[in-house]
């Protein structure tokens, strides 16, 4: 199974795993092509330190002081078209301490306009290593359907000190025509 999201992200994740990066990182600095932390610097300070655990895509400690406008870990997902009824699937393996679930959203650049599509579930990694699978249905009213757009998966990070070890990550799309939508099609579910 290959779709544009999976094809775009997979090699970049592999490259990051093999890089064994360690040390502090800067906002928007690329850890691998299209994978980066980002935060707003106004009246706040965010700190992320990579620990370079073997076998991990990413392991890091992070915290922030003040109220950053945003604090996130971002994975570019490439350019493609999403359709109403598609299901986005995120599979993550790892562990997290010091924070509860991470809110996720997909930011899409549609003809220059940025549209955010929040996942209905948060990414809940536990203190011990485990696998989490999330399914997110793409609704017709999400504003991202039908037009090619550049997509980025954004994980919002908490301000409290926390640690994440991310061993594996896949993001893919099950097309409406082939998958099992996580919500039934209704008379209005195609409305745009």
């Amino acid at each position, binding site marked *: 199974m290959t779709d544009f999201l999976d094809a775009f992200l997979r090699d970049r994740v592999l490259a990051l795993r093999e890089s064994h990066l360690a040390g502090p990182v800067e906002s928007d600095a690329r850890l691998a092509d299209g994978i980066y932390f980002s935060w707003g610097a106004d009246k706040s300070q965010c700190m992320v330190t990579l620990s370079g655990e073997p076998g991990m895509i990413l392991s890091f400690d992070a915290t922030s002081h003040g109220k950053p406008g945003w604090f996130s870990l971002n994975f570019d997902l490439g350019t493609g078209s999403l359709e109403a009824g598609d299901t986005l699937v995120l599979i993550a393996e790892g562990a997290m301490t010091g924070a509860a679930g991470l809110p996720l959203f997909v930011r899409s650049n549609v003809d220059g306009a940025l549209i955010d599509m929040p996942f209905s579930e948060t990414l809940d990694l536990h203190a011990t290593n485990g696998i989490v699978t999330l399914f997110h249905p793409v609704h017709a009213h999400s504003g991202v359907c039908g037009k090619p757009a550049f997509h980025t998966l954004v994980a919002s990070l908490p301000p409290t000190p926390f640690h994440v070890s991310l061993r594996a990550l896949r993001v893919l799309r099950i097309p409406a*025509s082939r998958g099992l939508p996580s919500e039934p099609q209704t008379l209005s579910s195609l409305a745009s």
Partner: protein
Amino acid sequence: MASGLQPALTLSAPGHFLVQPRLFIDTQHGLCNRLRALSSAVPVARATGRRLVVVWRPDHHCQARLSDLLAYTGPVIEDDAADLMRQRAARVYNYMEIEEGACYREPILDGAQPIDGDIYVRAADMLAGPFSNDPAAYRFLARQQPSDAVLDLVRSVPRPSDVAVHIRMGTGPDFDHLSYESPANWPAARHRELADWRRKSDVSRFVARLDALIAEGSASTIFAAADLQAAYAVLEERYGPRLRVLRRDLFDRSAAQLQYALADLMLLTTAPRFLASTWSSFSDVAQWLARPGRLHERSGIDF
């Protein structure tokens, strides 16, 4: 056990069954007339504590069974058992103007005389009265799941489109021979009114409006649904590859054609602008099912 609870363990009155009264909605005429009547009966049933029973008898207006169209799970009567329900109902409302004793849009359960038992409503339109709730009716219909056959048809058409068009022009002298368009279905004045609006929904009006939208760059793709092959032919010749339609060779009221019609209804929601046929229940329902606030232009009024 505390003594204070003991009285509740004995019956203070003879045993009896509590029977929830019913609201029978006898849906009439074509697909969207029926869907409109059914949907508007839902909030009335809910507000008056009645269980809804749908009467959906396939006939010359609509040969499809409800199950051909929707995965509806409530009780449905498809045969003359409905006549028995009508005879024994505490109150019958009949909106079908052509029938003796009918009273179009009579308020349902308007409170003048309380009615505790079953009520039976025969209608091809929205129910009226103190318990009607159009937004709740729209929500109910929007939540209904189409049958798998309908979904298969929907998937065969690319979407979204820039403009959706519904052309309903097949009523009037040229169509009187069709049983479902016959003047016998309506009082004379109502049929004249219908025929007048159908004339205002001629394909030429839609072509003029679409040409203007294309000229301003707002109609690169057009989804069209029409009731006549001739309308499709005009659009296909003029708009070529920018036109999207659900192709068929049926233009009748068969079950298969009505599955196409329901798929059309869903596809008409997949554009941000809708050119509708005024006085068409099909256009009305297509707009109900669309995103709230969708641009909506009506033949004979807006273009």
